[in-house]
């Protein structure tokens, strides 16, 4: 009974956020839409792929940024034309979209297969290794990038040039984020998604019920890779540039921080975390006092620490606790003492 109003409030807030996102370009300065909000949407997509794998598959992956980077580098190599690093193939940007996503997803299948035996800290370490390898790969293979990276990456002409029409890319990012969010929400209720949650909760039981746990993990990882790859394509359109620093360790940690600040157990948290991160990042750098501008790392570190200590579920966890507190207060008089659904007598073994 108590969940109903909480759910309504949740949905209401979600609806308001969506409405705000739609009208934001008319309400806030262009700098906000073109930079902060677009970046929030893109980082949110990558973080959402991490949260998806963690919340529904029990896999905390540090490779999401690399996969996003691989999609970005593929787009860069295929679609730039002329004076930059990389292959400069000059293809139509839409081909870049297709191949960027396909290639990054194939790499994700490979990563997924290699890490599908591992769980917990070992999984974390293996995906960290992927992240490091990807970073060095694009630094050292100068045919594809090199440390300077690829510049002047164009968006398709229907969308770009981005500097002239920042709203268009903003709406594209918003649309893509919305579709991916809906897709992830949908997938978790399909046989594949429910089984994935079974694998998360007890892989041994899943095997003895007849499931191929490793295959399941691999496919889930590939799906997470696909989501991250979409983010990677948007990122290079927005940034018009990508280099190995875009996927270096600190970028990996940024996305992890975003996911944890938001809350690792809920998809919406990805964009909440990204928004807080991006806004802090931007405003701390503008603040003059205490030379905070050069100490963004310290500030975000402290924010991170505060949130993790306050709530392991991140900001989303704090929000949910507030909701359930409010809900409890409302329903206190009639059925206050029945919060536990199940019988409380638990014979111990």
């Amino acid at each position, binding site marked *: 009974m108590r969940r109903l109003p909480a759910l309504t409030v949740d949905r209401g807030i979600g609806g308001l956020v969506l409405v705000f996102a739609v009208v934001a370009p008319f309400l806030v300065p262009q700098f906000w839409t073109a930079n902060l909000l677009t970046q929030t949407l893109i980082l949110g997509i990558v973080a959402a792929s991490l949260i998806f794998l963690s919340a529904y598959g029990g896999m905390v992956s540090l490779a999401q940024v690399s996969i996003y980077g691989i999609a970005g580098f593929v787009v860069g190599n295929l679609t730039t034309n002329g004076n930059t690093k990389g292959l400069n193939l000059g293809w139509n940007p839409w081909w870049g979209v297709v191949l960027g996503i396909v290639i990054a997803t194939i790499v994700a299948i490979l990563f997924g297969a290699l890490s599908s035996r591992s769980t917990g800290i070992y999984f974390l370490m293996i995906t960290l290794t992927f992240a490091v390898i990807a970073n060095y790969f694009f630094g050292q293979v100068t045919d594809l990038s090199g440390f300077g990276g690829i510049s002047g990456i164009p968006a398709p002409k229907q969308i770009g040039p981005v500097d002239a029409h920042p709203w268009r890319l903003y709406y594209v990012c918003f649309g893509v984020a919305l579709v991916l969010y809906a897709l992830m929400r*949908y*997938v978790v*209720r*399909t*046989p*594949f*998604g*429910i*089984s994935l*949650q*079974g694998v*998360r*909760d*007890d892989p*041994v*039981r*899943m*095997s*003895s*019920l*007849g*499931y*191929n*746990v490793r*295959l*399941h993990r691999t*496919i889930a990882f590939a*799906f997470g890779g696909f989501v991250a790859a979409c983010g990677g394509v948007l990122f290079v359109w927005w940034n018009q540039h990508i280099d190995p620093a875009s996927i270096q360790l600190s970028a990996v940690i940024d996305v992890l921080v975003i996911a944890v600040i938001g809350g690792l157990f809920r998809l919406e948290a990805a964009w909440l975390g990204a928004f807080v991160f991006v806004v802090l990042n931007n405003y701390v750098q503008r603040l003059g006092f205490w030379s905070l501008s050069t100490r963004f790392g310290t500030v975000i570190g402290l924010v991170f620490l505060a949130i993790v200590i306050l709530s392991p579920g991140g900001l989303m966890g704090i929000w949910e606790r507030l909701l359930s507190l409010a809900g409890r207060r409302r329903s206190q008089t009639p059925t206050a003492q029945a919060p*536990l*659904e*199940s*019988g*409380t*007598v*638990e*014979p*111990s*073994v």
Partner: protein
Amino acid sequence: MSEAVVTEHAEPILRLRGVGRRFGGLHAVRDVDLDVAHGERRAILGPNGAGKTTLFNVISGDFPATSGSIHFLGQDVTGVAARHRAKLGMGRTYQKTRLFHGLSVEDNLYLAVLGVKQGHLRPVVVPKQDEELRGRARELIASVHLGGRESTLVGNLSHGEQRQLEIGMARASDPKLMMLDEPASGLSRGERVALTDLLLGLDPSITLILIEHDMDVALRVAQRVTMMHDGRVIVEGTPDEIRANQTVHDLYLGRGHQADG
């Protein structure tokens, strides 16, 4: 009693020969020969650490055997993965419940039903197909007396309810061989009676192997009893023979009664 069943199928449904399982230097199961006939109800008894659960793990494929051979339905399954054994018709429960705590009761059974079917990776909802699976899941919920708890998260169930769900999970795949690892542990007296009734009411064509410390449950349900100690099978016989056996008394019954209070 068991002879009558055996004559229907000359081959036993399960045949173990010289099966062993080591954990490093520890021989948890050693040199076990076991024949279980089609439709038989077999109890496995033995003191703590005798290797009963390990024997289950080796049969179900959770751990591979380190020696010996296992035949199921006439087929050598010694090197076959657990998930394939499930599809051949093995179902089991766990001594320490292994349920999906983040999912609802219905989703747990949905997964158990889907496990031996096609379509694990289907990324779309097909209402007709899924409704069929869910219908079966709800039947199972009723059969283990959890009606009304469909959408409760398993983590919020009481211990007794979780034990009931365990049995539902093993039944979901319509297994030919069902292995229950101490299904009565932690249950109240009333719940034990209900469990015994449930086991006695099982379709007689299902072969049942039961590990159980509770003698009342074990000896009422079982037609034959296998007694393990130190990883080996030491006695096998009918419940009456087991009751009369002096070794069993020395090793187990005294201790078992103490442990059960």
